[in-house]
């Protein structure tokens, strides 16, 4: 019975897309409906926490696509955490989007909210996927339904961005991810996510495992490990709520979540560690972390800077996976949560700034702090969280990533993570510091005030979340750690 819950949760937002279309003519109704859909979804996901903590693992084979390849939903702690993040942040994003889209008088708002609902359905589908094929189905679905969001403006610039976005994501998923799944299926006879992995004992050698892992990671273009990261800055042409959804919640987290899940449940931590299948990605992810931060420093476009920051932060999670240790996996899943809260706050702020005064370059933000104190305070909090400073949630994920690095005796990674923190200070904390403490330029128009409440309230909530998670990270760690066997 409980398995049907999963199906219901995946289907719910997609089904609600129809009434949202129907209400297209009444924006208030449409947005209320969107928010209610989100809240119901969140409630549904929250109801799953109890059974999972008690050790339950809801599972349902819906039907078989091909013999042995089922549309299979199963929920385990990693998936639940991803689902909670997605479902938790979606209503906020919806509220924010309502404020933003109206504030900027964007066209085609109905299409926007429909695609939003479908995207979240895809995210929940990925979270609850019980095998690689189901994961792949929803992975591709997410790529497709977010494409109209990215190209929302429909002009030449967004067409170009959308082309890069979908081109890169589809190329990698069909060119690498799909063959990787086929290979996995052929050598192990199943694609089900299984505790301890399914590759151990299949006779695949160290080199083979390494190659397969590389196919997976580069196939999951959404994880944005260089050089398949280009889609992410390209997608910045989207309206900001989309960027928030894309770069904090659904899309990018779906990518790294898939990486994490594949590492844990397809390769299996022990197998991955013994064959060092994941080892090259310790360094490829490290390179991405540093290189993306270095690029971000030189980006004057605020959203682009945040996009490169995301690329770097995603590689933290890839790094955690590549450690192929329990601590690594735990820290990776914690970072999914903390980064989601931090980055969505930053994007909310970027959008609020744009809505309030139509500025999108960092160098134009001097002196805005007095006019928009809440926005920039939230920005500061989120920036501190991403840097990894207490008392923000990011401190714990950094702490655990470092512990994990030390745990697999790769001490150079400690240096990488530390350097990344410093670079983060330069390109993130610099922004609120400018806004609060530097005098504004002469042509600052008078009367700039905070963005509409629908924009400001969500970003305050997510910023508060960054702090609250500092104190609440503990249950997440325990929960995931226990699920992976033994205490964290």
């Amino acid at each position: 019975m409980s398995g049907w819950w999963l199906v219901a949760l995946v289907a719910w937002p997609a089904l609600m897309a129809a009434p949202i279309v129907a209400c297209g003519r009444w924006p208030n109704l449409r947005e209320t409906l969107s928010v209610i859909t989100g809240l119901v979804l969140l409630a549904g996901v929250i109801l799953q926490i109890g059974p999972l903590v008690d050790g339950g693992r809801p599972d349902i084979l819906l039907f078989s696509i091909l013999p042995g390849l089922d549309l299979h939903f199963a929920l385990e702690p990693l998936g639940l955490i991803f689902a909670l993040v997605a479902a938790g942040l979606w209503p906020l994003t919806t509220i924010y989007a309502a404020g933003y889209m109206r504030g900027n008088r964007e066209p085609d708002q109905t299409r926007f909210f429909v695609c939003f609902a479908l995207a979240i359905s895809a995210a929940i589908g990925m979270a609850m996927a019980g095998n690689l094929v189901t994961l792949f189905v929803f992975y591709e679905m997410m790529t497709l339904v977010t494409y109209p969001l990215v190209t929302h403006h429909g002009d030449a610039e967004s067409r170009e961005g959308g082309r890069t976005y979908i081109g890169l994501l589809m190329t990698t998923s069909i060119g690498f991810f799909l063959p990787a799944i086929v290979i996995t299926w052929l050598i192990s006879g199943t694609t089900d996510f299984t505790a301890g992995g399914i590759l151990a004992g299949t006779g695949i050698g160290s080199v083979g495992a390494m190659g397969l892992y590389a196919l997976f990671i580069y196939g999951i273009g959404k994880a944005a490990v260089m050089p398949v990261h280009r889609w992410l800055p390209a997608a910045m042409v989207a309206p900001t709520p989309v960027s928030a959804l894309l770069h904090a919640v659904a899309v990018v987290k779906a990518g790294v979540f898939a990486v994490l899940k594949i590492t844990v449940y397809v390769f299996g931590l022990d197998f991955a560690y013994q064959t060092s299948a994941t080892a090259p990605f310790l360094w490829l992810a490290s390179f991405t972390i540093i290189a993306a931060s270095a690029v971000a420093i030189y980006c004057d476009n605020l959203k682009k800077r945040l996009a490169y920051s995301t690329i770097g932060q995603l590689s933290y999670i890839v790094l955690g996976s590549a450690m192929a240790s329990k601590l690594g996996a735990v820290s990776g899943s914690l970072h999914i949560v903390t980064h989601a809260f931090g980055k969505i706050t930053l994007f909310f702020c970027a959008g609020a700034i744009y809505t309030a005064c139509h500025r999108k370059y960092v160098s134009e933000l001097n002196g805005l702090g007095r006019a928009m104190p809440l926005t920039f305070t939230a920005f500061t909090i989120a920036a501190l969280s991403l840097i990894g400073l207490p008392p923000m949630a990011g401190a714990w994920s950094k702490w655990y990533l470092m512990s994990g690095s030390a745990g697999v005796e790769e001490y150079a990674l400690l240096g990488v993570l530390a350097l990344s923190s410093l670079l983060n200070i330069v390109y993130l904390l610099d922004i609120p510091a400018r806004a609060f403490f530097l005098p504004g330029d002469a042509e600052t128009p008078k009367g700039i005030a905070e963005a509409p409440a629908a924009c400001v309230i969500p970003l305050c909530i997510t910023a508060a979340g960054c702090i609250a998670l500092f104190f609440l990270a503990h249950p997440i760690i325990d929960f995931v750690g226990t699920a992976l066997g033994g205490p964290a």
Partner: protein
Amino acid sequence: MSDWLGQAIASPALALFFAALLVAVTPRLLHGLWLVGVPAAALALLFALPEGMHGTVSMFGHELSTLRVDGLSRLWGAIFLLSAALTGLYGLNVKDRLQHVASLLYAGSAVGAVLAGDLVTLFLFWEGTAISSVFLIWARRTVRAHIVGVRYLIIQVISGLLLMVGTIIHQRATGSIAFNTLGLDSAGGWLIFLSFGIKAGFPLLHNWIQDAYPEATVYGTVVLSIFTTKLAIYALARGFAGTDLLIPIGAVMTIFPLIFALIENDLRRVLAYCLNNQLGFMVVAIGIGTPLALNGAAAHAVAHILYKGLLFMTMGAVLYRVGTVKASQLGGLYRSMPATTVFCIVGAMASSAVPLFSAFVSKSMIQGALGYEHMAVVWVVLLVAAGLGAIVPGIKVPFFAFFHRDRGYRVKEAPFNMQLAMGATALLCIAVGVFPGALYALLPYEATYNAYTLSHVINQLQLLAFAALAFVLLYAARLFPANVRGLNLDTDWAYRRALPALVERFRQSSVSLRARVMHVFSRNGSRAADWLASAFGLGGAMARTWTTGVMLLWVIVLLALYLVIYY
């Protein structure tokens, strides 16, 4: 009563955080209460706490002890809270709410770090001091302060990261996160040592102090001068007492900043250099590690916080009224700011260890400890440093600011609350010097010491008087370095000039490399695209509609091919 005292909630640090919240949300009228009253109340709370480990919190499988009260932490906590109250008084006239919030958070973090019983808690508060303090620099609201602030924060965070990494490695090696004697036996210990060393201003790692402190606000510099570096001294005393390496490090620290201070024009930077030199005394004492030496370090930290705070307060008052603290611009202020002048002289005398002033009773403990351990070389070095300390800041700061050549500034005396704060601090400087017994009673270790022996008093006076004499002669002969506008290179050159240049160079070359690669790609790419278009494009050989004859030719070719293969 004592139930809640053992809980994490009873931490004086939390009291200060709460005060910060109150300052943020209540009207200005009440700020005095929070800025002065809460630290005072927290001080009472600190002394109400029984000794031992309290506030145990279980987190991530670690048992965190957020509240450790023993002699060492109580003394440090007490002086931090006391000075928080004094600086709160000093800053009462500041309208910028943010500075108050930041300073209370900063003080709270410092107190929390001092009371931390384990390395994780220490790390959390350690980073807390870094984040909160940078706002005191940025609050100057200038472009330069912005840049300096970022630089300062990065260095502070480097220290925090080293502590974090060190703790992780230390924990893996020993299985413990307790913050006790760590030693340099392991990689973790070394990293933590380096972390403390950055904040304590070890030679070559020191320059953030002189870079950042003079760029903060009037109020901010006073607050900054108190906590971060002394927190590092506490951490060294806790974790690395008796580490021999600290003795040479400290000895170097006592001398070289003073040479820089001699030719420095910005008087707050002069004070920052001297602050660095005084840290050297404490570092040496911790390196010796005997109870007397450690008591000396603790006593000197207390004395130092008071007189250095006082000196920064007076310079702050000057900056507040005149708008500059550059020695080349100042002079003759004793006419307009007589009270400040007096306070500055008291601070200078306390700093120079004149008998009956605070440093005399503390610095001599360190000197004495060196003597008892027969460390002649270091003893001489410290003596030299003490002599030189009589000139900078002892004479240089008050003399050039308040006397020297009258620049004609006719300004108002410092605001009343500033005078009150300076007066109270000056009084404390003298009280410690006159009644050292009260301070000695608070010291953490068992060691009796008496500063006021006849020979000691005379010797000290000889040292100071002849140093002063030398100054007078040099000044009269116009040999004393003139106050000239400009700045002096220091180790910060490495990261303000060399590193950015290197990074820029690297960036340039990687940008051009990328451009070259892209060029090759795009050229070959466009060639390939041209070829593809010519082959497969609309008129291309592959996609053109072949004539029927050509099609038939292919049929024949294929048939022939099959037949050839089959035969």
